[in-house]
């Protein structure tokens, strides 16, 4: 950049001239465009207020284009509140190098281009004398309010491999490509049945695989933090697999068993019925941005657990958003998938109070429906004892746990995560009981359920005892020995929270309760294929001159 020329633009006179030529090519007024661009630059530098800028050019713009699509004063005020103002909008027109400036200009249209010219300066410039311009380059212009992740309760996992199977079926994986992997291990010779690890991709916030990728194929999706592989960009160097400390990557060493046609046909069949977002492609392969990141990889590129972007994009209907195939399939409900940024999401509430989460999950099967309660209670008295006696499906223990869960939970029954549905079932049952006349917050009931202390004669009843409620839940469901993230010292900031035993450095895998070979996955081509634990054994069939020996 020359410092001597008189250009208003941080990229200099040459660039300014080029802009002018581009404007000359349009049917619109070049002088007006250049003047606006210059002033837009002043806005980004803070020399001109945004309101003044609008004021100054409104008439000209109306005259030239017949419309002024730039934010009106009201819209501007609104934008100011949400995004930091027009200057921020200008700055956020960031050239990320994916598109040429000219291409971008075309998209913006000539009118917007007037303003955009200045904005490009904002993102391309960056000398110290223009702090706002420089700051614009550094700013992260994408608001991320979702970070998908999981809480996995290792003490509830029974090693059935349902999640591994579900993942293989959802993504049509080749044998031995275990995006989801479950293993039992021995640690220092002590084998408790709870030494078990469930290992999907950790979808790290600071993913080393992404950092080393020479192509940007491995990337983090801006809006929800999923770490994905763009199958159309990956060159198959396998450096991501090398850099990942967890070993979650699986290279597609040969032609995959299931064709893209089969996957698409299956997707049409299964996704067609759902009330899905029409913007999301229907093939279970492209995500909402149109990038091929889902289902098994094609030959010669890398794959790993995706946390089901097609589901998160609404491609399988609204109900599937916020779920994964493995989570849905887990019989003991050991996997909680959700938004790690939301304190009230399934994984966060579960990790925050695992005893509550476990009890809630366990009790759900025993919560009687409101209808059943109404039928049972018809004609019964409204004291606790009579209610429990009259109700077939509700015993004192169940009610104590249900009430204890309510006591320890803030905003009980509110929200849209899957555990909230469990809570709503309890709310309905409680409503039925209250309707019958049983006051669940009364001294009689709470003391009767051991969820409150009986007040002394000169004291008032001070409501439920939260610590007693928590004790009830811990006694019922147990609490995990620890709460950890895998290989935390690697600095990867994983988005999976584990509850249970953390494997030590000497942990070694042992046989689990169910062998991989004994579980079959039903794939899109109609075949039923047994899972494989060791990929190498499957691949050896294709190795040229495999001598069956190892170095």
């Amino acid at each position, binding site marked *: 950049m020359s410092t001597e020329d008189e250009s208003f633009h941080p990229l200099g006179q040459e660039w300014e001239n080029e802009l002018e030529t581009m404007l000359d090519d349009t049917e619109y007024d070049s002088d007006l465009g250049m003047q606006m661009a210059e002033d837009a630059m002043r806005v980004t530098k803070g020399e001109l207020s945004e309101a003044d800028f609008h004021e100054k050019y409104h008439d000209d713009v109306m005259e030239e284009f017949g419309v002024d699509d730039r934010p009106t004063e009201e819209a501007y005020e609104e934008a100011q509140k949400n995004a930091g103002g027009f200057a921020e909008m200008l700055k956020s027109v960031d050239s990320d*190098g994916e598109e040429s400036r000219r291409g971008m200009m075309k998209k913006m249209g000539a009118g917007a281009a007037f303003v955009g010219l200045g904005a490009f300066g904002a993102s391309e410039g960056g000398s110290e004398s223009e702090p706002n311009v420089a700051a614009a380059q550094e700013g992260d212009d994408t608001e991320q309010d979702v970070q998908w992740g999981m809480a996995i309760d290792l003490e509830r996992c029974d090693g059935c491999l349902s999640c591994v199977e579900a993942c293989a079926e959802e993504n049509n994986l080749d044998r*031995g490509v*275990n995006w989801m992997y479950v*293993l039992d*291990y021995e640690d220092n010779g002590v084998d408790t049945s709870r030494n078990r*690890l469930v*290992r999907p991709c950790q979808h790290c916030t600071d993913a*080393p695989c992404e*950092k*080393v*990728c*020479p*192509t*940007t194929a491995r990337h983090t999706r801006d809006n929800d933090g999923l770490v994905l592989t763009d199958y159309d*960009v*990956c*060159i*198959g*160097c*396998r*450096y991501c*697999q*090398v*850099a*990942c*400390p967890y*070993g*979650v990557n699986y*290279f*597609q*060493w*040969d*032609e995959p068993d299931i064709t893209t046609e089969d996957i698409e046909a299956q997707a049409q069949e299964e996704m067609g019925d759902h009330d899905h977002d029409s913007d999301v492609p229907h093939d279970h392969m492209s995500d909402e941005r149109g990038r091929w990141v889902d289902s098994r990889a094609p*030959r*010669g*590129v890398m794959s790993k657990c995706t946390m089901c972007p097609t589901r998160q994009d609404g491609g399988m209907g609204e109900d599937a958003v916020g779920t994964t195939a493995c989570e849905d399939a887990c019989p003991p409900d050991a996997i909680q998938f959700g938004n790690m940024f939301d304190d009230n999401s399934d994984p966060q509430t579960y990790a925050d109070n695992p005893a509550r989460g476990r009890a809630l999950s366990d009790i759900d099967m025993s919560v009687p429906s409101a209808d059943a309660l109404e039928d049972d209670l018809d004609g019964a008295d409204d004291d606790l004892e009579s209610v429990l006696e009259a109700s077939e499906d509700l015993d004192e223990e169940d009610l104590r746990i249900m009430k204890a869960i309510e006591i320890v939970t803030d905003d009980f029954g509110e929200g849209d995560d899957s555990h909230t549905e469990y809570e709503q079932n309890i709310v309905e049952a409680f409503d039925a009981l209250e309707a019958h006349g049983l006051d669940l917050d009364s001294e009689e009931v709470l003391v009767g359920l051991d969820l409150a202390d009986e007040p002394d004669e000169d004291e008032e009843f001070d409501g439920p005892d939260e610590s007693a409620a928590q004790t009830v839940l811990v006694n019922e469901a147990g609490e995990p020995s620890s709460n950890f993230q895998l290989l935390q010292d*690697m*600095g990867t900031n994983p988005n999976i929270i584990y509850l249970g035993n953390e*494997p030590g*450095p*000497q*942990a*070694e*895998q*042992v046989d689990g309760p169910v062998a991989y070979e004994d579980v079959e996955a039903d794939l899109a081509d109609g075949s039923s294929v047994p899972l494989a*634990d*060791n*990929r*190498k*054994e499957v*691949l050896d069939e*294709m*190795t*040229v*001159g*495999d*001598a069956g*020996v*190892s*170095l």
Partner: protein
Amino acid sequence: MSTKTPSEDDILRPMHTFTKKYVLLFAIAALALGAFLVGWMYQLQQGMAVTGLSDWGSGGGVTWGLYIGAFIWWVGIAHGGIILSAAVRLLGMDRYMPVARLAEMLTLAGLSAAGFYIMVHMGRPDRMVTSIIGHYHITVNNSPLVWDVTVITAYFVLTATYLGLTLRYDIARLRDDLPSFAPNVGGKQLPDLLAPVYNVLTLGYTKAEDKVIDRMVWWVALAIIIMAPLLLHGGVIPWLFAVLPNYPGWFGGIQGPQFLTIALTSAISGVILLSYAFRRAYDWDHIITDDIFRGLLLWLGFFCLLFLWLQLQQLATGSFHPTTDHADATASKFSHPMYVGPMLMVLGVLVYIFAQTIRPSLFSKGRAIAAGLLVLTATLVEKTYFVLSGFWYPSFSIYDGSPGEYFPSAIELLSLVGTVGMVVLFFLVLSKLVPVVELHAVEHLRGDHGHGHEHDHESVDESAEQPEVEA
């Protein structure tokens, strides 16, 4: 040492002879390369499953293997070669001037072989340009692999420039004696096809430029001497591995110097073998003298010592009071033949070299060749072990499939033969086109400062009499 006087005819001899042995060697090298190309085509058709590789961890294998080991090996040979040549120009080590150009050419050949391995190693080599170049401005900030590609490319350009500049002097003077190739196709006489090549190489040459070129070459040599240890084999190549904390066998700052010693030992070995081959083929006893071999051998000994010293550092720190993951990685070194074998080979070479400096009668060219072959074998095996052992002993070693199994497939093994064939072909072709010993070297050996060219460093007599390594 021979009493024959080196002449222009000597260095032109490769271009003026055409023997059955040449044809035979050419055929063998072409066959080796061809066989691997067929193997590679099969790999492209079937996928990387034809290799012995698999996923590390639950996948039960290693994801990088011989291809990457051989890649490092070739880059090492390449980089050491150019360092040797640059030392001749920069430090005035004129004793090695007769083999300087061979070393430069070895760099180009080695880099080509290494670059070829990058392609062979990838699942989708067809996307090399679109995916890497297209996102270069982003990835160059983070990805050590992109740093590698960048520096290797820069190095290739630098070396080619260097070679091109020094060739101008020779070609301009020997132009009339350089070969021509004007085939008669179907009764139609074609013009000399080689003439344009020489014309381009000497475009705009005047004797006045010699001094300027000399200075330019000096600066390029300086750049190379700085770049090679700091950026290349002491930099981005080891950083591919050394920056990853999840592999105790790889992680840490020692890999920079360690890789550099491996590069230098293997490159000097390569130059010894290459020099011997040319000396024997073209009766160059009086040009590539025994003295050169003695000197190269001494340097080889010195770098072998450094190599072993840095290995010792790793063994000591990895076994004194190691963390669990380091303990496993180091224990493997003490027992695995792919590590112990190379260490013993290098140690043996070191012992021999030091013995022959004390007792010069122990020197023979045959033994020098054997030393070179031993070191090249040792560095290839050690580098391959280095790559494999990372995956065998990762920090997160919980998986039953870890350490993974691996044996190079026939195609992977063939790649070694193929790339050696490729490098041999490179020299066979190049030696027919341009002098592989520079004219300066001949003039220098004759004590001849003619042709209007002045050396601005020390005089010939001084440098010839001074052994630059005291025994």
